[in-house]
């Protein structure tokens, strides 16, 4: 029998790793991967709590299905914005200095 705290501890470690990636990394793709790792941790915590709770069982599972669907949508939008950034500034690295003088849209 696995205690609920084990699942929550792994979920919080995943959230911490994702937060570390989002704070430290300069590459937009790695920041997106960090956000997805955080999302996985949140999903795991939500499913574990909903399974162990006698009341919110199907609420949690149904909610997770909708959350995973929306996660796919926001990842697609993030990729589009990343492609836009790359097309305009010719880099996906936030550490690379960009010149706003050459940008006609600013």
């Amino acid at each position, binding site marked *: *029998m*696995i205690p*609920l*705290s*084990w699942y*929550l*501890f*792994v979920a*919080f470690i*995943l*959230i*911490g*790793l*994702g937060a*570390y*990636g989002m*704070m*430290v*990394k*300069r590459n937009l*793709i790695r920041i997106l*991967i960090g956000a*997805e*790792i955080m999302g*996985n941790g949140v*999903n*795991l915590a939500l*499913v*574990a709590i909903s*399974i*162990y*709770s*006698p009341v919110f*069982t*199907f*609420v949690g*599972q*149904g909610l997770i*299905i*909708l959350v995973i*669907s929306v*996660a*796919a*949508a*926001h*990842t*697609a*939008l993030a*990729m*589009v914005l990343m*492609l*836009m950034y*790359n097309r*305009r500034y*010719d*880099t*996906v*690295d936030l*550490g*690379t200095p960009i010149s706003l003088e050459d940008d006609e849209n600013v």
Partner: protein
Amino acid sequence: MMQADVWLELNPWFEQLMFILIAGLVIFLAYAALEHKRIVYAVFFFGFMAAFVAGFFLLLEAPFIAGMQIAVYTGGISALIIFGVLLIPRAQDSTLESFASPRYKRLGALISFVVVMLSGHLAVFFPWSETFASDLPPLEFNIELVSQWIWSDHGIYVQMTALILLTSIVGAIAILKMDKAETMGPIIGEFGVESVEEPIDDEASVEEPPTEEPLDDEASVEEPSTEGPSTEEPEEEVGNE
């Protein structure tokens, strides 16, 4: 299926062993996805991590969510990120990637460590057993109940999710097309109005003479202007016909 259940009942340590194994793999793969130098390998590690997170859902006896996790995260999101990386050639070159200074790395690690320890303290020492059932409720074959909960009882949530997905797709296409329309030149085809290289435009015929005025003399400009209307009117009528 029955043999697996009997195996789990006979060996209660087997479930905990599987949990520890999957947890170690997931944490290692998440770290590798963040720290690997090659960005394509990092995305692959993320896909494997998402697949192993589905193992947690199987241990929690939620097989439908495990399948959805594999289908969406491993099959959809990691493939989407890989295609995005392949569309950006500069992102594949690890030498162009800039890294944060060690000071910022230590600060980020400290903040995330504090977050993990506070959350872990809550997870370990909070009396969950008093608020929730200490034992797993009998949730075998719960796919029918989950689908009934979603589609019959709370179908509005599915419609809201479908609306969010549709909005995101339309927004993504609109953003890409908007940026493309800014850089796009005039469309010149073989047929239609666009096929005429210099379309008959009233504004252009009015604006053109003032640009030619400083080049010619006043008399030469006035002569076409007096004869102009008699010659231009038939042209416009022909053009209109």
